[in-house]
Protein backbone atom coordinates (compact mmCIF):
# COMPACT_ATOMS: atom_id res chain seq x y z
CA UNK A 1 0.00 0.00 0.00
CA UNK A 2 2.76 2.39 0.88
CA UNK A 3 4.52 1.72 -2.38
CA UNK A 4 1.37 2.49 -4.27
CA UNK A 5 1.04 5.69 -2.38
CA UNK A 6 4.61 6.74 -2.94
CA UNK A 7 4.09 6.60 -6.65
CA UNK A 8 0.88 8.51 -6.32
CA UNK A 9 2.39 11.19 -4.14
CA UNK A 10 5.33 11.69 -6.47
CA UNK A 11 3.09 12.22 -9.42
CA UNK A 12 0.98 14.69 -7.55
CA UNK A 13 3.99 16.67 -6.37
CA UNK A 14 5.29 16.96 -9.89
CA UNK A 15 1.95 18.11 -11.24
CA UNK A 16 1.45 20.62 -8.43
CA UNK A 17 -2.06 19.39 -7.84
CA UNK A 18 -3.59 20.53 -4.62
CA UNK A 19 -5.14 17.20 -3.76
CA UNK A 20 -3.08 14.13 -3.97
CA UNK A 21 -4.52 10.95 -5.19
CA UNK A 22 -5.59 8.93 -2.25
CA UNK A 23 -4.26 5.58 -1.34
CA UNK A 24 -7.81 4.77 -0.35
CA UNK A 25 -8.38 4.74 -4.07
CA UNK A 26 -5.90 1.99 -4.63
CA UNK A 27 -8.21 -0.89 -5.38
CA UNK A 28 -5.72 -3.52 -4.39
CA UNK A 29 -4.70 -1.87 -1.14
CA UNK A 30 -4.65 -4.33 1.73
CA UNK A 31 -5.91 -3.52 5.19
CA UNK A 32 -3.43 -1.46 7.18
CA UNK A 33 -3.10 0.25 10.51
CA UNK A 34 -3.55 3.63 8.84
CA UNK A 35 -7.13 4.56 8.12
CA UNK A 36 -8.10 5.10 4.54
CA UNK A 37 -7.60 8.79 3.99
CA UNK A 38 -7.27 11.25 1.20
CA UNK A 39 -3.91 12.87 1.64
CA UNK A 40 -3.62 16.61 1.15
CA UNK A 41 -0.01 16.93 0.16
CA UNK A 42 -0.03 20.69 -0.20
CA UNK A 43 -1.51 21.15 3.25
CA UNK A 44 1.13 18.83 4.67
CA UNK A 45 3.87 20.67 2.84
CA UNK A 46 2.79 23.96 4.39
CA UNK A 47 2.88 22.49 7.86
CA UNK A 48 6.27 20.95 7.17
CA UNK A 49 7.70 24.22 5.92
CA UNK A 50 6.42 26.13 8.90
CA UNK A 51 6.80 23.70 11.75
CA UNK A 52 9.24 20.90 10.86
CA UNK A 53 12.01 21.96 8.52
CA UNK A 54 13.50 24.52 10.86
CA UNK A 55 14.82 21.69 13.01
CA UNK A 56 14.63 18.46 11.04
CA UNK A 57 16.09 19.95 7.88
CA UNK A 58 14.74 20.97 4.51
CA UNK A 59 14.33 17.36 3.43
CA UNK A 60 13.57 15.96 6.86
CA UNK A 61 16.98 14.36 6.64
CA UNK A 62 17.89 15.32 10.19
CA UNK A 63 20.07 18.26 11.17
CA UNK A 64 22.12 19.26 14.17
CA UNK A 65 20.69 17.42 17.18
CA UNK A 66 17.34 16.80 15.51
CA UNK A 67 16.72 13.33 14.11
CA UNK A 68 16.16 12.20 10.57
CA UNK A 69 12.45 11.56 10.05
CA UNK A 70 12.10 10.98 6.32
CA UNK A 71 12.82 7.29 6.81
CA UNK A 72 9.95 6.73 9.22
CA UNK A 73 6.91 4.72 8.27
CA UNK A 74 3.82 6.94 8.23
CA UNK A 75 2.14 4.78 10.85
CA UNK A 76 5.11 5.16 13.18
CA UNK A 77 5.29 8.90 12.73
CA UNK A 78 1.56 9.34 13.19
CA UNK A 79 1.72 7.40 16.43
CA UNK A 80 4.55 9.60 17.73
CA UNK A 81 2.77 12.80 16.77
CA UNK A 82 -0.40 11.64 18.45
CA UNK A 83 1.53 10.84 21.63
CA UNK A 84 3.25 14.23 21.56
CA UNK A 85 -0.10 15.90 20.94
CA UNK A 86 -1.41 14.19 24.06
CA UNK A 87 1.46 15.71 26.01
CA UNK A 88 3.54 12.59 26.45
CA UNK A 89 7.24 13.22 26.99
CA UNK A 90 9.81 10.94 25.39
CA UNK A 91 13.20 12.02 24.10
CA UNK A 92 15.18 15.21 24.76
CA UNK A 93 13.11 17.47 22.54
CA UNK A 94 9.68 16.53 23.87
CA UNK A 95 8.88 20.07 24.96
CA UNK A 96 9.39 21.29 21.41
CA UNK A 97 7.47 18.45 19.83
CA UNK A 98 4.51 18.71 22.19
CA UNK A 99 4.16 22.35 21.26
CA UNK A 100 4.27 21.60 17.58
CA UNK A 101 1.99 18.57 17.73
CA UNK A 102 -0.75 20.03 19.85
CA UNK A 103 -1.75 22.29 16.95
CA UNK A 104 -2.33 19.35 14.63
CA UNK A 105 -5.64 17.77 13.80
CA UNK A 106 -6.03 14.07 13.02
CA UNK A 107 -6.09 15.01 9.37
CA UNK A 108 -2.95 17.10 9.70
CA UNK A 109 -1.13 14.20 11.31
CA UNK A 110 -2.22 11.79 8.64
CA UNK A 111 -1.22 14.19 5.87
CA UNK A 112 2.11 15.07 7.43
CA UNK A 113 3.09 11.50 8.20
CA UNK A 114 2.67 10.46 4.59
CA UNK A 115 4.23 13.62 3.18
CA UNK A 116 7.41 13.37 5.23
CA UNK A 117 7.81 9.70 4.35
CA UNK A 118 7.37 10.20 0.63
CA UNK A 119 8.30 13.70 -0.48
CA UNK A 120 12.08 13.62 -0.36
CA UNK A 121 14.90 11.79 -2.01
CA UNK A 122 16.60 9.54 0.48
Amino acid at each position, binding site marked *: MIRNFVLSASLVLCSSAVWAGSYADASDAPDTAMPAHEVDIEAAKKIF*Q*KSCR*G*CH*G*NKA*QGAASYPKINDLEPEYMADKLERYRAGEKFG*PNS*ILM*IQQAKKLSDEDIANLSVYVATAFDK
Partner: protein
Amino acid sequence: MNWNKSHSRLPLVGCLLAGTAILSSPVLAQSGMNTTSLQHEVVLDDLENPWDMAFLDDGTMLFTEKCKGLSIRMPDGAINALYGVGETEGYGSNGADLFCEGQAGMMGVAFDPEFANNRRIYVYSTSNMSDPHTNRLMRFTLAEDFTSVADRTDIVDDVPYKMAASDHPFGGPGAHNGGRVRFGPDGALYLTTGDNHNGEVPQSPTMMGSKVIRIDTDGNAHPENAPPEGFDKRTYTYGHRNVQGIAFHPKTGAAITAEHGPWHSDEITILRNGGNAGWDPRPNMAGRGDCPDNYCGYSPNQEEGMNRYERAAYMPMTDFDTYPDAMPPIWNNNGWSQGTSSAAFLEGEQWGDWNGAMVVGIMGIGFGGTPIGQRIDVIQFNDENTDVEDVTEMTLPMEPGRFRSVVMGPDGSLYTAIDEGTIYKLTPGS
Protein backbone atom coordinates in the same frame (compact mmCIF):
# COMPACT_ATOMS: atom_id res chain seq x y z
CA MET B 1 -5.75 27.42 9.28
CA ASN B 2 -3.51 30.36 9.82
CA TRP B 3 -0.42 28.67 8.52
CA ASN B 4 -2.17 27.87 5.27
CA LYS B 5 -2.93 31.52 4.74
CA SER B 6 0.40 32.86 5.76
CA HIS B 7 2.29 30.49 3.50
CA SER B 8 -0.06 30.47 0.60
CA ARG B 9 2.70 31.23 -1.88
CA LEU B 10 5.11 28.66 -0.63
CA PRO B 11 4.17 25.83 -2.97
CA LEU B 12 5.00 27.88 -6.02
CA VAL B 13 8.15 29.26 -4.48
CA GLY B 14 9.07 25.81 -3.26
CA CYS B 15 8.66 24.35 -6.72
CA LEU B 16 10.79 27.06 -8.25
CA LEU B 17 13.47 26.67 -5.66
CA ALA B 18 13.39 22.93 -5.92
CA GLY B 19 13.86 23.29 -9.63
CA THR B 20 16.91 25.45 -9.22
CA ALA B 21 18.42 23.00 -6.78
CA ILE B 22 17.87 20.08 -9.11
CA LEU B 23 19.36 21.92 -12.05
CA SER B 24 22.18 23.21 -9.86
CA SER B 25 22.47 26.21 -12.08
CA PRO B 26 25.31 28.59 -11.30
CA VAL B 27 23.78 31.46 -13.21
CA LEU B 28 20.72 32.14 -11.16
CA ALA B 29 20.53 35.56 -9.67
CA GLN B 30 18.03 37.83 -8.11
CA SER B 31 18.04 41.55 -7.94
CA GLY B 32 16.04 44.29 -6.37
CA MET B 33 16.08 47.05 -3.85
CA ASN B 34 18.87 46.59 -1.34
CA THR B 35 19.76 43.22 -2.81
CA THR B 36 22.96 42.12 -4.37
CA SER B 37 22.52 39.69 -7.22
CA LEU B 38 24.01 36.38 -6.25
CA GLN B 39 25.06 33.19 -7.93
CA HIS B 40 25.32 30.00 -5.98
CA GLU B 41 27.37 26.89 -6.36
CA VAL B 42 27.33 23.69 -4.36
CA VAL B 43 30.88 23.19 -3.13
CA LEU B 44 30.21 20.02 -1.14
CA ASP B 45 27.03 18.07 -0.57
CA ASP B 46 25.90 15.04 1.40
CA LEU B 47 28.02 16.03 4.36
CA GLU B 48 26.98 15.16 7.88
CA ASN B 49 26.27 18.33 9.84
CA PRO B 50 29.08 20.51 8.50
CA TRP B 51 29.95 22.97 11.23
CA ASP B 52 32.76 25.25 10.15
CA MET B 53 35.28 26.03 7.43
CA ALA B 54 38.64 27.78 7.14
CA PHE B 55 40.57 28.80 4.03
CA LEU B 56 44.04 29.32 2.69
CA ASP B 57 44.66 31.90 0.00
CA ASP B 58 44.69 29.27 -2.75
CA GLY B 59 41.21 28.05 -1.82
CA THR B 60 42.27 25.05 0.25
CA MET B 61 39.42 24.56 2.72
CA LEU B 62 39.38 22.83 6.07
CA PHE B 63 35.92 21.75 7.14
CA THR B 64 34.45 19.92 10.09
CA GLU B 65 31.52 17.55 10.32
CA LYS B 66 30.12 17.38 13.81
CA CYS B 67 30.03 13.62 14.27
CA LYS B 68 32.59 12.58 11.67
CA GLY B 69 35.67 14.73 11.86
CA LEU B 70 38.06 17.13 10.19
CA SER B 71 38.70 17.07 6.45
CA ILE B 72 40.35 19.26 3.88
CA ARG B 73 39.25 20.11 0.36
CA MET B 74 42.13 20.84 -1.96
CA PRO B 75 41.91 23.47 -4.73
CA ASP B 76 41.41 20.69 -7.29
CA GLY B 77 38.42 19.39 -5.35
CA ALA B 78 40.12 16.37 -3.81
CA ILE B 79 39.08 15.60 -0.23
CA ASN B 80 41.46 14.32 2.42
CA ALA B 81 39.84 13.04 5.62
CA LEU B 82 42.29 14.07 8.30
CA TYR B 83 41.13 13.40 11.84
CA GLY B 84 38.08 11.40 12.78
CA VAL B 85 35.73 11.67 15.73
CA GLY B 86 36.01 8.52 17.83
CA GLU B 87 36.14 5.44 15.66
CA THR B 88 34.78 7.04 12.51
CA GLU B 89 36.22 5.14 9.58
CA GLY B 90 38.02 6.61 6.62
CA TYR B 91 40.16 9.21 8.37
CA GLY B 92 43.93 9.35 8.36
CA SER B 93 43.92 9.24 12.13
CA ASN B 94 41.35 9.44 14.88
CA GLY B 95 40.82 11.01 18.24
CA ALA B 96 39.53 8.06 20.21
CA ASP B 97 38.41 10.43 22.93
CA LEU B 98 36.34 12.62 20.64
CA PHE B 99 32.60 12.07 20.44
CA CYS B 100 29.39 13.79 19.51
CA GLU B 101 26.20 14.09 21.50
CA GLY B 102 23.33 16.46 20.89
CA GLN B 103 24.78 19.84 19.98
CA ALA B 104 28.30 18.75 20.88
CA GLY B 105 30.95 17.24 18.64
CA MET B 106 33.58 18.62 16.31
CA MET B 107 32.93 22.31 15.76
CA GLY B 108 35.14 25.29 14.90
CA VAL B 109 38.33 25.22 12.86
CA ALA B 110 41.06 27.70 11.93
CA PHE B 111 44.35 27.97 10.10
CA ASP B 112 47.22 29.61 11.92
CA PRO B 113 47.97 33.04 10.41
CA GLU B 114 51.56 31.79 10.11
CA PHE B 115 50.49 28.50 8.57
CA ALA B 116 52.90 28.83 5.66
CA ASN B 117 55.72 28.71 8.18
CA ASN B 118 54.40 26.47 10.95
CA ARG B 119 51.73 24.25 9.31
CA ARG B 120 49.52 24.65 12.36
CA ILE B 121 45.75 24.29 12.43
CA TYR B 122 43.23 24.41 15.29
CA VAL B 123 40.00 22.53 15.85
CA TYR B 124 37.51 22.47 18.71
CA SER B 125 35.77 19.27 19.75
CA THR B 126 34.04 17.48 22.56
CA SER B 127 36.22 14.92 24.31
CA ASN B 128 35.77 12.21 26.94
CA MET B 129 39.41 12.28 27.97
CA SER B 130 38.43 14.05 31.18
CA ASP B 131 35.62 13.11 33.50
CA PRO B 132 33.35 15.00 33.51
CA HIS B 133 33.91 15.38 29.81
CA THR B 134 35.01 18.68 28.31
CA ASN B 135 35.35 20.57 25.08
CA ARG B 136 38.90 20.96 23.89
CA LEU B 137 40.74 23.21 21.50
CA MET B 138 43.35 21.12 19.74
CA ARG B 139 46.37 22.23 17.75
CA PHE B 140 47.75 20.04 14.99
CA THR B 141 50.52 20.13 12.44
CA LEU B 142 49.23 19.54 8.92
CA ALA B 143 51.52 17.50 6.70
CA GLU B 144 53.19 19.13 3.73
CA ASP B 145 51.05 17.01 1.38
CA PHE B 146 47.84 17.89 3.26
CA THR B 147 46.96 14.23 3.79
CA SER B 148 47.45 13.89 7.53
CA VAL B 149 47.74 15.69 10.82
CA ALA B 150 50.15 15.11 13.68
CA ASP B 151 51.38 16.56 16.96
CA ARG B 152 47.97 16.96 18.60
CA THR B 153 48.29 19.38 21.49
CA ASP B 154 45.22 20.30 23.50
CA ILE B 155 45.81 23.98 24.18
CA VAL B 156 42.46 24.36 25.95
CA ASP B 157 41.11 21.29 27.73
CA ASP B 158 38.63 22.62 30.26
CA VAL B 159 35.61 24.09 28.50
CA PRO B 160 32.70 22.48 30.32
CA TYR B 161 30.34 20.00 28.72
CA LYS B 162 26.77 19.15 29.70
CA MET B 163 26.95 15.55 30.87
CA ALA B 164 23.32 14.73 31.60
CA ALA B 165 19.90 15.59 30.28
CA SER B 166 17.90 18.24 32.09
CA ASP B 167 14.31 19.38 32.22
CA HIS B 168 14.54 22.01 29.53
CA PRO B 169 13.76 22.45 25.88
CA PHE B 170 16.67 21.10 23.86
CA GLY B 171 17.47 19.47 27.21
CA GLY B 172 19.64 16.58 26.11
CA PRO B 173 23.31 16.18 27.01
CA GLY B 174 25.82 18.21 25.05
CA ALA B 175 23.95 21.53 24.96
CA HIS B 176 25.54 24.95 24.46
CA ASN B 177 29.22 24.52 23.71
CA GLY B 178 29.77 27.72 21.72
CA GLY B 179 32.36 26.49 19.27
CA ARG B 180 33.74 29.12 16.91
CA VAL B 181 37.52 29.42 16.55
CA ARG B 182 38.95 32.51 14.91
CA PHE B 183 42.15 34.54 14.83
CA GLY B 184 41.70 38.26 15.38
CA PRO B 185 43.55 41.07 13.66
CA ASP B 186 45.63 41.29 16.84
CA GLY B 187 47.02 37.86 16.05
CA ALA B 188 45.32 36.30 19.07
CA LEU B 189 43.25 33.15 18.99
CA TYR B 190 39.62 33.55 20.02
CA LEU B 191 37.40 30.67 21.15
CA THR B 192 33.71 31.09 21.94
CA THR B 193 31.97 28.90 24.52
CA GLY B 194 28.50 28.29 25.95
CA ASP B 195 26.60 27.83 29.20
CA ASN B 196 25.81 24.07 29.11
CA HIS B 197 22.32 24.80 30.52
CA ASN B 198 24.13 25.44 33.78
CA GLY B 199 23.02 28.56 35.63
CA GLU B 200 26.35 28.92 37.40
CA VAL B 201 28.54 28.99 34.31
CA PRO B 202 27.95 32.39 32.67
CA GLN B 203 29.04 34.58 35.57
CA SER B 204 31.56 32.10 36.95
CA PRO B 205 35.08 33.51 37.14
CA THR B 206 36.67 30.10 36.64
CA MET B 207 34.36 27.87 34.60
CA MET B 208 35.27 28.56 31.01
CA GLY B 209 31.83 28.21 29.50
CA SER B 210 29.90 31.32 28.39
CA LYS B 211 33.16 33.08 27.62
CA VAL B 212 35.03 34.50 24.72
CA ILE B 213 38.51 33.21 25.37
CA ARG B 214 41.53 35.08 23.99
CA ILE B 215 44.79 33.17 24.04
CA ASP B 216 48.00 32.54 22.20
CA THR B 217 48.58 29.40 20.18
CA ASP B 218 49.91 27.56 23.20
CA GLY B 219 46.74 28.29 25.14
CA ASN B 220 48.18 31.03 27.34
CA ALA B 221 46.08 34.03 28.26
CA HIS B 222 46.56 37.11 26.13
CA PRO B 223 48.56 39.50 28.33
CA GLU B 224 46.12 42.34 27.71
CA ASN B 225 42.98 40.48 28.71
CA ALA B 226 41.24 42.52 31.39
CA PRO B 227 38.57 40.42 33.09
CA PRO B 228 37.47 41.29 36.63
CA GLU B 229 39.72 40.31 39.50
CA GLY B 230 39.60 36.63 40.26
CA PHE B 231 38.67 35.59 36.74
CA ASP B 232 40.61 33.12 34.69
CA LYS B 233 42.99 35.32 32.72
CA ARG B 234 42.08 33.66 29.45
CA THR B 235 38.74 35.47 29.67
CA TYR B 236 38.23 38.22 27.12
CA THR B 237 34.49 38.55 27.81
CA TYR B 238 32.05 36.58 29.94
CA GLY B 239 28.36 36.31 30.75
CA HIS B 240 27.41 34.96 27.34
CA ARG B 241 24.77 32.35 26.61
CA ASN B 242 26.07 30.36 23.67
CA VAL B 243 28.29 32.23 21.27
CA GLN B 244 28.58 30.56 17.89
CA GLY B 245 29.47 33.63 15.85
CA ILE B 246 32.47 35.92 16.11
CA ALA B 247 33.99 38.20 13.52
CA PHE B 248 36.24 41.22 13.52
CA HIS B 249 35.29 44.58 12.10
CA PRO B 250 37.52 45.28 9.10
CA LYS B 251 38.04 48.92 10.05
CA THR B 252 38.04 48.99 13.83
CA GLY B 253 39.31 45.46 14.47
CA ALA B 254 36.67 45.07 17.18
CA ALA B 255 35.60 41.54 18.04
CA ILE B 256 31.88 41.25 17.45
CA THR B 257 29.77 38.30 18.50
CA ALA B 258 26.52 36.92 17.10
CA GLU B 259 24.68 34.97 19.71
CA HIS B 260 21.69 32.69 19.90
CA GLY B 261 19.02 33.95 22.30
CA PRO B 262 16.77 32.00 24.70
CA TRP B 263 13.50 32.05 22.74
CA HIS B 264 13.95 35.78 22.51
CA SER B 265 16.64 38.30 21.70
CA ASP B 266 19.32 36.94 19.44
CA GLU B 267 22.12 39.45 19.84
CA ILE B 268 25.03 41.05 18.06
CA THR B 269 27.45 42.64 20.49
CA ILE B 270 30.63 44.66 20.01
CA LEU B 271 32.88 43.18 22.65
CA ARG B 272 34.70 45.22 25.26
CA ASN B 273 37.82 43.68 26.77
CA GLY B 274 36.81 42.29 30.14
CA GLY B 275 33.14 42.96 29.48
CA ASN B 276 30.11 41.15 30.80
CA ALA B 277 27.45 40.15 28.28
CA GLY B 278 24.90 40.12 31.08
CA TRP B 279 23.47 36.60 30.80
CA ASP B 280 22.80 35.15 34.24
CA PRO B 281 20.19 32.38 34.29
CA ARG B 282 20.56 31.47 37.96
CA PRO B 283 17.37 30.89 39.94
CA ASN B 284 16.33 32.96 42.95
CA MET B 285 17.81 36.21 41.81
CA ALA B 286 16.84 39.18 39.65
CA GLY B 287 13.24 38.69 40.68
CA ARG B 288 13.10 35.03 39.75
CA GLY B 289 12.19 32.04 41.89
CA ASP B 290 13.12 28.43 41.41
CA CYS B 291 13.61 27.14 37.90
CA PRO B 292 13.82 23.63 36.45
CA ASP B 293 17.14 22.00 37.26
CA ASN B 294 18.47 25.34 38.54
CA TYR B 295 18.55 26.95 35.11
CA CYS B 296 16.14 29.74 34.24
CA GLY B 297 17.34 30.09 30.67
CA TYR B 298 13.98 29.14 29.17
CA SER B 299 11.80 30.50 31.93
CA PRO B 300 9.14 31.54 32.47
CA ASN B 301 6.67 29.06 31.11
CA GLN B 302 9.32 27.01 29.32
CA GLU B 303 6.86 24.53 27.88
CA GLU B 304 4.61 27.03 26.14
CA GLY B 305 5.02 29.81 23.65
CA MET B 306 4.53 33.30 24.98
CA ASN B 307 5.22 36.93 24.17
CA ARG B 308 8.94 37.36 23.61
CA TYR B 309 9.07 40.69 25.40
CA GLU B 310 7.49 39.20 28.50
CA ARG B 311 10.13 36.50 28.38
CA ALA B 312 12.87 39.09 27.97
CA ALA B 313 11.61 41.05 30.96
CA TYR B 314 11.72 37.96 33.17
CA MET B 315 14.97 36.42 31.92
CA PRO B 316 16.86 39.05 29.95
CA MET B 317 19.55 38.09 27.51
CA THR B 318 21.46 41.15 28.75
CA ASP B 319 20.46 41.98 32.31
CA PHE B 320 21.16 45.68 32.73
CA ASP B 321 19.30 45.84 36.04
CA THR B 322 21.71 43.42 37.64
CA TYR B 323 24.74 44.39 35.55
CA PRO B 324 24.44 48.07 34.56
CA ASP B 325 27.83 47.98 32.87
CA ALA B 326 26.99 45.00 30.69
CA MET B 327 27.96 45.26 27.03
CA PRO B 328 24.92 46.54 25.14
CA PRO B 329 23.83 44.54 22.11
CA ILE B 330 23.60 46.53 18.91
CA TRP B 331 20.98 44.20 17.38
CA ASN B 332 18.44 41.92 18.99
CA ASN B 333 16.66 40.42 15.98
CA ASN B 334 13.51 42.38 16.77
CA GLY B 335 13.25 40.46 19.97
CA TRP B 336 13.15 37.06 18.26
CA SER B 337 15.35 34.07 18.80
CA GLN B 338 15.72 32.24 15.52
CA GLY B 339 19.01 30.42 15.86
CA THR B 340 21.64 33.05 15.14
CA SER B 341 24.81 31.11 14.66
CA SER B 342 27.70 32.61 12.79
CA ALA B 343 29.16 35.84 11.53
CA ALA B 344 31.62 37.17 8.98
CA PHE B 345 32.38 40.41 7.18
CA LEU B 346 31.96 40.72 3.43
CA GLU B 347 35.10 41.95 1.75
CA GLY B 348 35.70 43.28 -1.72
CA GLU B 349 34.30 45.73 -4.24
CA GLN B 350 32.30 42.92 -5.81
CA TRP B 351 29.89 43.19 -2.91
CA GLY B 352 28.98 46.76 -3.83
CA ASP B 353 27.27 48.60 -0.99
CA TRP B 354 27.67 45.51 1.14
CA ASN B 355 31.46 45.65 1.06
CA GLY B 356 32.48 45.76 4.70
CA ALA B 357 29.06 44.71 6.00
CA MET B 358 28.59 41.91 8.48
CA VAL B 359 26.67 38.81 7.53
CA VAL B 360 24.97 36.61 10.08
CA GLY B 361 23.78 33.07 9.50
CA ILE B 362 20.47 32.19 11.11
CA MET B 363 19.44 28.55 11.43
CA GLY B 364 15.75 28.93 12.19
CA ILE B 365 13.65 27.56 15.01
CA GLY B 366 9.92 28.19 14.68
CA PHE B 367 8.61 27.58 18.19
CA GLY B 368 5.67 29.15 19.98
CA GLY B 369 4.71 31.48 17.16
CA THR B 370 8.24 32.54 16.25
CA PRO B 371 8.76 32.72 12.49
CA ILE B 372 11.37 30.14 11.47
CA GLY B 373 13.56 32.81 9.96
CA GLN B 374 16.18 30.73 8.16
CA ARG B 375 18.26 33.32 6.38
CA ILE B 376 21.48 35.29 6.08
CA ASP B 377 21.16 38.86 7.29
CA VAL B 378 23.41 41.65 6.07
CA ILE B 379 24.22 44.03 8.91
CA GLN B 380 25.45 47.47 7.90
CA PHE B 381 27.10 49.64 10.51
CA ASN B 382 26.92 53.38 11.02
CA ASP B 383 29.73 55.70 10.01
CA GLU B 384 31.32 55.38 13.42
CA ASN B 385 31.09 51.57 13.23
CA THR B 386 29.55 51.57 16.65
CA ASP B 387 25.97 50.60 15.90
CA VAL B 388 23.72 48.94 13.37
CA GLU B 389 22.41 51.26 10.70
CA ASP B 390 20.57 48.86 8.44
CA VAL B 391 19.67 45.19 8.22
CA THR B 392 18.85 43.48 4.94
CA GLU B 393 17.88 39.90 4.43
CA MET B 394 20.07 38.46 1.70
CA THR B 395 18.00 37.31 -1.25
CA LEU B 396 19.24 33.81 -1.69
CA PRO B 397 19.62 32.10 -5.04
CA MET B 398 18.96 28.73 -3.44
CA GLU B 399 16.66 27.20 -0.89
CA PRO B 400 17.45 28.32 2.66
CA GLY B 401 18.66 25.93 5.32
CA ARG B 402 20.08 25.87 8.81
CA PHE B 403 22.91 28.33 8.21
CA ARG B 404 25.47 27.08 10.71
CA SER B 405 28.51 28.81 9.31
CA VAL B 406 29.35 31.80 7.12
CA VAL B 407 32.97 32.32 6.09
CA MET B 408 34.59 34.64 3.56
CA GLY B 409 36.62 32.78 0.99
CA PRO B 410 39.89 34.03 -0.48
CA ASP B 411 38.16 34.34 -3.85
CA GLY B 412 35.83 37.04 -2.52
CA SER B 413 32.84 34.70 -2.32
CA LEU B 414 30.89 33.94 0.82
CA TYR B 415 30.82 30.30 1.82
CA THR B 416 28.04 28.98 3.99
CA ALA B 417 27.43 25.57 5.54
CA ILE B 418 23.96 24.35 6.41
CA ASP B 419 23.29 21.58 8.91
CA GLU B 420 21.43 19.68 6.22
CA GLY B 421 24.80 18.78 4.72
CA THR B 422 25.74 21.32 2.07
CA ILE B 423 28.46 23.91 1.75
CA TYR B 424 27.48 26.63 -0.71
CA LYS B 425 29.50 29.32 -2.38
CA LEU B 426 27.69 32.62 -2.88
CA THR B 427 29.17 34.98 -5.42
CA PRO B 428 27.98 38.49 -6.28
CA GLY B 429 26.97 39.21 -9.83
CA SER B 430 24.43 37.94 -12.26
